[in-house]
């Protein structure tokens, strides 16, 4: 086999120059002729009935073009997983920030002024912010059709858990809780829309999944899907927040239709922090049965998911937490009970890891407890129970390749695990080390839209190629990696390839950029589409050169005869001559469907064609006088299958580590329990890691060459974040004996643990 020329190479991003100059256009950078500025009026109440809305004063303000309330819209709710939210509230508001009315005006200032002139008569209702209280009889009902505010109860039962516990020597029960976190994408949400002269509603919005956006916008605007077009634009960070749809696109579209002009809504940072779909807080009860030798026998997990005011993709997130808990380490019996509960708060949604970081924090913290009680080294306990190639997990995940053991080996060596100081430590500053691991999908067959990716290639008579890719690129370098794959298959320089993505009118439909699926699934589609195009080129050249196809090979835009390298044909000439060429364009397309099974209502299925693994080690120093926690070092060994572009893969891991560290120690969306207002409404209050906070990091890429992945690759986007908080928590315990049961882990809790008399 020829050595790879583009795959596995540290190739710069295809948008690099546009990004280092700032010229890569984000939605707010677009200059549409006659653009109006849209603004959303939001509820100041956590829970209230809308008695009436008077927009007449706002409409009289010069420069105001349109004022719109819920009753001015078609009155259709978003589809989501459970349809429960109007683009603009009609009957009730359910959290502080719920959209109530919208304005389009000639300037942003006028739009803002107009918001202040809209009079809304609210009848405030009692609100509930705690999911456990929301479940009680007599709690305020947030959606009248949901008894006890229960969105739904999710049960999973695999194997025979009771028997598993009966066969266990010891059973451990613990409770953990995790916090809400906003994604804090650097680009605040922005969407622009207009109805073009052909009557097509065109939308520009930074998204991971343009086809979800198209579906939802067409639905709430009561338009056929084919008359909505999502347009290509750069996206300033995704991390799940733009994974399906965001509610601003619907409002923008409705304003554009109503005003007959282009409209743009760009969120303020405060809106971005307080009204977008955040990471769900979980309360987790975990019960695990083990043999004295450390063999895991059974696991039961009960979670309460704080859903906030609307469902969005909460059930999918909860289901994935269950899948993760069933599949982390070999465990024969597994049971799960999840209550997804409405509260009068900002709603949760997808966030990198999709429920896995919550579950893993509980699993990995408890695993260290088990190791200590049984007197087994935490590393040995993990290796003993680690997933292995060929395993079938209780929920049906079929693991083809698994590098977890090697990952654990690499991490433990790098942090000198075996030589670590054991037992009580002394002095003001105490060091500790901790381990945690993760398993993660490469695409996930759980949505009714199906699980597939499609890529279309067009080669022109100048020998250049355009790649049409339906999913977005939120900055993950996904479009670069897809371009590398096409370059490799066609032996064509990167510069000769142009990639067009997420234009729903021209790109074939793909599910989207989430579930760590793009490099894997779009990658396979690209590889196969390119392989087919290669065959077309060879076929045409063989006829022209009157030699057999087998005797030809591709080289940098030329098709060369092996026996006599002076006999060549350019790609362009081959396109020109091919009988398959239509209008001087040679087209090839591939619709890739991974060998997976759609998730059943009982939660059993092999939802992904490959599973990635990660082991992480954390080294911390705790100041016993202040409780302050400093992460000194993070070590990661990740089974990436094959690193298609090592810079991109490292970038995904490094970025995930920073988010994982923030998740562990600082980031928390705090809501005032009397008013329901978000207190941490700006970047200054959410405490994201800065360049000053990043510890030393070592990253090892373990290449297991997955048989289904393109060139052996697996997904890498999310898994880097999943075990980080757990590894840090375990390191804190190792340092000072404090077992964190709650994220984020606060210095004051460590302090009060060490100085109980000061509490």
């Amino acid at each position, binding site marked *: 086999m020829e050595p790879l020329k583009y795959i596995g190479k540290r190739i710069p991003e295809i948008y690099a120059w546009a990004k280092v100059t700032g010229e890569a256009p984000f939605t707010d950078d677009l200059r549409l002729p006659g653009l109006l500025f849209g603004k959303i009026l939001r509820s100041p109440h956590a829970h209230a009935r809308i008695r009436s809305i008077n927009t007449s004063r706002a409409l009289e303000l010069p420069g105001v073009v349109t004022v719109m309330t819920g009753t001015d819209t078609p009155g259709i709710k978003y589809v989501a997983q459970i349809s429960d939210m109007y683009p603009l509230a009609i009957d009730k508001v359910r959290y502080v920030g719920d959209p109530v009315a919208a304005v389009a005006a000639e300037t942003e200032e006028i739009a803002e002024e107009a918001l202040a002139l809209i009079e809304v008569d609210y009848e405030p209702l009692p609100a509930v912010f705690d999911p456990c209280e929301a479940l009680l009889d007599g709690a305020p009902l947030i959606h009248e059709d949901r008894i006890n505010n229960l969105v739904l109860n999710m049960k999973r039962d695999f194997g025979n858990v009771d028997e598993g516990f009966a066969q266990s020597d010891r059973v451990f029960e613990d409770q953990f809780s995790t916090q809400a976190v906003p994604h804090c994408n650097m680009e605040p949400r922005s969407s622009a829309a207009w109805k073009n002269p052909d009557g097509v509603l065109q939308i520009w919005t930074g998204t991971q999944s343009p086809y979800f956006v198209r579906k939802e916008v067409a639905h709430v605007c009561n338009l056929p899907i084919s008359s909505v077009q999502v347009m290509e634009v750069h996206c300033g960070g995704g991390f799940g927040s733009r994974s399906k749809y965001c509610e601003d696109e619907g409002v923008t579209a409705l304003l554009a239709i109503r005003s007959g002009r282009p409209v743009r809504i760009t969120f303020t940072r405060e809106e971005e922090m307080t009204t977008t779909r955040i990471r769900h807080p979980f309360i987790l009860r975990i019960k695990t049965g083990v043999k004295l030798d450390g063999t895991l026998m059974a696991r039961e997990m009960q979670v309460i998911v704080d859903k906030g005011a609307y469902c969005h993709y909460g059930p999918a997130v909860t289901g994935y937490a269950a899948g993760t808990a069933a599949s982390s380490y070999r465990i024969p019996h597994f049971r799960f009970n999840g209550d997804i509960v409405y509260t009068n708060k900002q709603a949760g949604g997808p966030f990198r890891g999709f429920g896995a970081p919550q579950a893993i924090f509980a699993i990995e913290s408890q695993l260290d407890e088990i190791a200590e009680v049984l007197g087994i080294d935490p590393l040995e306990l993990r290796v003993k129970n680690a997933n292995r190639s060929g395993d079938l997990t209780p929920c049906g995940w079929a693991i083809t390749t698994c590098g977890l053991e090697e990952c654990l080996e690499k991490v433990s060596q790098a942090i000198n695990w075996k030589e670590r100081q054991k037992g009580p430590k002394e002095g003001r500053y105490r060091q500790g080390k901790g381990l945690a691991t993760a398993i993660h999908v490469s695409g996930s067959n759980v949505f009714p839209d199906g699980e597939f990716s499609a890529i279309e290639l067009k080669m022109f008579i100048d020998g250049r190629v355009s790649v049409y890719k339906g999913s977005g690129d939120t900055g993950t370098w996904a479009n670069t990696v897809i371009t590398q794959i096409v370059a490799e298959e066609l032996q064509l320089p990167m510069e000769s390839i142009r990639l067009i993505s997420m234009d729903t009118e021209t790109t074939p439909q793909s599910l989207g950029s989430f579930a760590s699926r793009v490099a894997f699934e779009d990658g396979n589609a690209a590889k196969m589409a390119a392989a087919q195009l290669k065959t077309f080129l060879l076929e045409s050249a063989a006829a022209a050169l009157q030699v057999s196809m087998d005797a030809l090979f591709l080289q940098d835009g030329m098709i060369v005869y092996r026996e006599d390298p002076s006999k060549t044909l350019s790609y362009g000439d081959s396109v020109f001559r091919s009988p398959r060429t239509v209008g001087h364009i040679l087209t090839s397309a591939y619709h890739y469907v991974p060998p997976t099974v759609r998730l059943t209502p009982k939660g059993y299925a092999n939802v992904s064609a490959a599973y990635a693994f990660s082991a992480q080690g954390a080294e911390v120093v705790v100041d016993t006088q202040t409780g302050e926690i400093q992460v000194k070092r993070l070590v990661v060994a990740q089974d990436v299958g094959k690193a298609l572009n090592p810079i991109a893969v490292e*970038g995904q891991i490094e970025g995930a580590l920073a988010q994982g560290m923030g998740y562990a120690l600082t980031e928390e969306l705090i809501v005032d329990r009397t008013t329901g207002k978000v207190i941490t409404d700006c970047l200054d209050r959410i405490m994201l890691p800065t360049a000053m906070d990043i510890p030393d990091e070592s990253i090892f890429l373990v290449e297991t060459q997955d048989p289904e992945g393109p060139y052996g690759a697996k997904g890498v986007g999310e898994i880097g974040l999943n075990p980080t908080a757990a590894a840090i928590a375990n390191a804190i315990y190792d340092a000072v004996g404090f077992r964190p049961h709650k994220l984020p882990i606060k210095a004051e809790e460590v302090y009060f643990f060490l100085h109980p008399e000061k509490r």
Partner: protein
Amino acid sequence: MKHIRLQINGVWRTGWANPGQTLLDFLREELNCTEVKKGCGKGDCGACTVIMNGISIDSCLTLALQAEGAEIITAKGLGTKDNPHPLQEAFIEKGAFQCGFCTPGMILSAKALLDKNPKPNREEIRRGLSGNICRCTGYRKIEEAVASASERSSNQSDDRELKDQ
């Protein structure tokens, strides 16, 4: 409204500014300098960083009127594709960006740092970038890129010194 005149990347530009308008909004909305990004509008994120009269500032915390007659440098003015700035080259080579939204501000903060301190150590680089938030990269590659640009620049100036001799 006041008519103001200022130099952007070496070119004199004029436009109308409201008394309360920030330099950021003036640059983006009046002069279409969309390479200057608005991440928060409160001075928390650094995405709107520009260099004004040699000093890096948050353009969201500066009034447009304060920029009358000023020399402003944005990321677009640092280099050309054929003759890129060492920081641009280093950011590209090290892969020091993902979504690219914070990148223009990050590069300008790095430039301000290197202009003052051409050979910063790791701690100085981190401090120099601490006002710019990046949610994608985890900063490691950014730090490497700034260190690499610092080496590149000093090599280039060494070359020039050799030629001068």
